[in-house]
């Protein structure tokens, strides 16, 4: 047999991931509409909550200090939701069959989308914080608190991106993925993001206090504005890890089950 046609060597695990991360970042940069939305929406929400609702919710004018952590998470949730659409798009295109028949870790396609989403959302978060500082947000955080806050935000983005990736894998089409993803975006409104939970009716308060977003928000709020944190930080990390691991397992299962079907 000709020496040219030996069974192929193939890319290492690390370079496979690097190639797919590069691919997804190119996709993100070229999807101009989604990119503009991911940056513009946080700014619009920030201005809306500070200038339009802020006066009514907290007439003193310090609402911006209360609402920033909520806006950060709302935007991170919104930003990572496009992962569901990206993943579903790849799964309904023939290209996934090509990757699956190559001697590489084809699940890295999904890893590529997840890391690209993380990068996009961290940039969007930086924009949110920049605008927040411009409209009067005042922080008590030192360098350690900032690092911890960025760590929690990163974990939150990663968690929700994997959850959206799994949703994208089980959805039949990109538009179905976008529909399922939309439902999750209501979670931040039912938390302490925009108003303290003790202003809510008792039954709703029960929901709001015990859902994963509230401890994450309280943790970021504590780190950035010095409100008490106590054990909510552990709840925040615990919830995120639980959802992250669950979503990863769900995504891997769905990815393997989908083989050969479109």
């Amino acid at each position: 047999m000709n020496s040219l046609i030996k069974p192929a060597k193939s890319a290492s695990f690390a370079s496979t991931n690097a190639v797919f991360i590069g691919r997804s970042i190119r996709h993100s940069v070229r999807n101009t509409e989604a990119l503009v939305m991911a940056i513009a929406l946080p700014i619009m929400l920030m201005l809306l909550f500070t200038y339009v609702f802020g006066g009514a919710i907290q007439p003193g004018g310090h609402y911006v200090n209360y609402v920033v952590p909520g806006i950060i998470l709302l935007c991170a949730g919104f930003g990572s939701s496009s992962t569901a659409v990206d993943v579903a798009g790849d799964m309904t295109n023939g290209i996934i069959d090509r990757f699956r028949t190559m001697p590489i870790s084809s699940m890295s396609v999904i890893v590529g989308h997840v890391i690209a989403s993380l990068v996009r959302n961290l940039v969007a978060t930086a924009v949110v914080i920049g605008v927040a500082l411009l409209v009067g947000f005042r922080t008590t955080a030192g360098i350690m608190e900032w690092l911890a806050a960025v760590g929690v935000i990163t974990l939150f983005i990663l968690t929700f991106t994997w959850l959206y990736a799994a949703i994208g894998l089980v959805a039949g089409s990109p538009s179905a993925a976008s529909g399922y993803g939309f439902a999750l975006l209501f979670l931040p409104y039912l938390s302490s993001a925009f108003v303290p939970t003790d202003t809510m009716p008792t039954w709703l308060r029960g929901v709001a206090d015990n859902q994963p977003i509230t401890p994450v928000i309280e943790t970021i709020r504590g780190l950035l504005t010095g409100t008490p944190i106590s054990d909510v930080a552990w709840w925040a990390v615990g919830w995120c890890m639980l959802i992250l691991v669950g979503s990863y397992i769900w995504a891997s299962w769905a990815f393997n089950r989908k083989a050969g079907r479109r």
Partner: protein
Amino acid sequence: MVTAMIEVKGLRKAFGDHVVLDGIDLSVPSGAIFALIGPNGAGKTTLIHILSTLVAPDSGSVRVAGHDVITDKEGVKQSISLTGQFAAVDEVLTAEENLRMMGRLCGLTAAEARRRAIELLASFDLTAAAHKRVKTYSGGMRRRLDLALSLVVTRPILFLDEPTTGLDTQSRRALWNDIRQLAAKGVTVFLTTQYLEEADQLADAIAVIAGGRVVAQGTADELKSRVGGDVVELRDENDEIIREVPTGSSIREVKMTIDELVRAAPEGSRVNIRRPSMEDVFVALTTKELEESAI
């Protein structure tokens, strides 16, 4: 050293209660060009998906390059390259980026991948569009890129599912040439096609599947002789074919067929007697199979 690159025995596959492959036996020797033909829905794509590990067979033994498609998927994947029936290209990237990405995934260095991309863009006549996003490509350009992507590195077996569908005549000829060159280098090519002429021109061996089974297998000539006799064509005064009637090869049989035709033949019509084409073989074999399965 493996002599049969693809070895399929008693392969069955059903989707729900719809049996698609119902006991397929095939053997493809190393370095051969093998063509699979059959009507729409016969299970050609399903068979390629099974051979390339995308779909698991229900039963039977399937070995590709000596590796079992269920227990040794990785071994199979290292030996194959696939261009599926529907374009598998990244629409957001350019052709050059697609090819470089594939090169990197096949273990080439960045520089090797770039060089290979330039070569393939030239040989698939895509150099002018190399830096345009694939989204803006015509169907044929997309197909050419799709084919180029499976040739970034040369693997022992190449699967092509209807590779020339949607290509113009010139691109089709060029691809036939590439396929012949690959086979000459020792690559085993397994392709499906709707064009019988293509199977006739290109393939060393042909299998016809219909009703979930291989209804005939052999070289183009062997298949033609299986249909046996000649075909009588009835043509009108403008030389348009009115009817084609397969018949035996003896003079008596031909005469009887012509006698039949004379009664219905319009004024000015002519007759022509010829050897059967692949088309005739195909029609004869698949209709026979369909009639049998209807009973």
